[in-house]
């Protein structure tokens, strides 16, 4: 019944959706808010985002929520089926609680994902935009190097690096980064080639801006969105590569509860005790799916060709 009297100050929502921002900060925030609104209207992307936030929460509160110590062995209760002996998802060959190991394993997964996601696209962005914008021999040299990296199957190349550097999570991450950047460089170069001849790039050149400035301030912001999309879509592959390295014993070392290593350990029991390998498999599947859904949603939101309208 009662009318809410109009405030002098606009509400946060009005401030964010305003068509006439009054400061740089407001312009930036409202652009972000609009992207968020667009993302929010995509249920699948939101579903993916929920899973990832859930994963983040699990990783953060692992010690509180995990029912058992992930490293505590109890050989008497080894290979308990899910639900038996207080093990919700069963126990593995050394009698460790699989659920707790999965929960702690999420930390490792996120650690790998975050490191790779930060490093690989940035390397790719540097190489790709420099090659695309400068052209000529710079382009030839950088792209041939990229081709050499692309010519090897990813896992094989990663294997070679890890064997050379020694097993361990950090080295696994490094190996994945070394094998993951070339596709980003290719994307960044392709984007740069189309952007390079746009009038707005000509315009800033005619303002007297140098190559470094054009690349970092004008081309990067436009490449980053497609890279972010690609990274989220690749995330599943990165998790799987990390898991693959773990599976081959070259990633995380026992007793670390890395999901790939857990599958590897459960492999020998797969017929009689299916849950040992299946549970971490499901975890990898869920997180990969979440990243894929989010990536799809982000593509719709961030694609500059669409939002430019």
């Amino acid at each position, binding site marked *: 019944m009662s009318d809410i009297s109009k405030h002098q100050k606009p509400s946060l929502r009005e401030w964010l959706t305003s068509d*006439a921002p009054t400061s740089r900060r407001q312009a930036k925030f409202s652009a972000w808010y609009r992207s968020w609104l667009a993302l929010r209207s995509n249920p699948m992307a939101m579903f993916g985002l929920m899973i990832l936030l859930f994963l983040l929460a699990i990783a953060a509160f692992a010690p509180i929520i995990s029912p058992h110590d992930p490293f505590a062995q109890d050989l008497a209760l080894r290979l308990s089926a899910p639900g038996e002996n207080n093990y919700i998802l069963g126990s593995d060959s050394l009698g460790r609680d699989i659920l707790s190991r999965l929960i702690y394993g999420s930390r490792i997964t996120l650690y790998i994902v975050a490191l790779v996601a930060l490093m690989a696209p940035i390397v790719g962005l540097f190489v790709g935009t420099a090659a695309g914008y400068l052209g000529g021999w710079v382009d030839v040299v950088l792209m041939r190097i990229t081709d050499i990296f692309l010519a090897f199957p990813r896992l094989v190349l990663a294997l070679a690096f890890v064997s050379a550097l020694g097993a361990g999570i950090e080295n696994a991450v490094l190996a994945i980064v070394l094998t993951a950047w070339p596709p980003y460089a290719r994307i960044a170069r392709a984007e740069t080639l189309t952007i390079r001849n746009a009038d707005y790039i000509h315009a800033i050149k005619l303002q007297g801006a140098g190559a470094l400035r054009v690349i970092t301030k004008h081309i990067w912001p436009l490449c980053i969105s497609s890279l972010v999309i690609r990274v989220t879509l690749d995330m599943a592959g990165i998790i799987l590569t990390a898991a693959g390295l773990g599976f081959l014993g070259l990633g995380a070392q026992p007793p670390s509860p890395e999901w790939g290593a857990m599958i590897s350990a459960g492999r020998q029991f797969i017929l009689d005790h299916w849950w040992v390998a299946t549970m971490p498999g499901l975890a990898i599947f869920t997180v990969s799916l979440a990243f894929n859904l989010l990536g799809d949603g982000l593509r719709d939101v961030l694609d500059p060709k669409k939002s430019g309208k």
Partner: protein
Amino acid sequence: MTSNDNSGIRINNLDVWFGDHEERVDAVIDAEFSVPLGGSFGLVGESGSGKSTILRAITGLAPTWSGEIFVLGKELGKTRDKEFFSTVQMVFQDPYASLHPRQTVDHVLSEALYLHGFDQPDNRIVKILDDVGLSQIFRFRYPHQLSGGQRQRVAIARALIIEPSILLLDEPTSALDVSVQAEILNLLTDLRAERNLTYLMVSHDLAVVGHMCSKIAVMNLGRIVEVLDVKDMRKMKAENAYTKQLLEASIQRRREA
């Protein structure tokens, strides 16, 4: 050549080409004209006639050219320095393509000021927005929040905020509606009078060039076929057959009505 050179832009024997050897395409052949300081000169022609290429050669966007280009009496080399860009600025054809999609109006203008080391950026931005007839509420908008005419005003503001003396206009209104075209053309006329600018304008529309410029060069297939006064053009006093054809095509449509 002439020592008492008071021209804004002077061009002698300009050839511009793309590609090399067998694939070489000559876009401009032996172009020659000069624009007096404070004057306004039009280049007219159909698509592919090389009119925009001349602008690109002047600004350094088309690097393969030979001949002589003088700006304010100074001959240009192969590269352009900052001093050149603070003298010569350009407004592009399509306002939808000439503004960076992720940068606000404020960002675009600030960067121009920063690159040329101007002080008091805030005051200057407020003033230039006023000068191009844009309300201050547009200052923090992104290009997609602006109409075509507003975008073109931003592009003009970007070119003028660093106070150049020569403005190159590459079909500045061909992507706009006629009513907006009238506004932008009026704005350009006013700005030229206020700031004593030199205009070199490229257009396919004889009526637009006739309105804006006092002298025009008609281009066809890379060559300047005729340079004539706009007064003569209005009287249809063209000598060249192609110019006549072009004039007739643009006037006839109205006569038929």
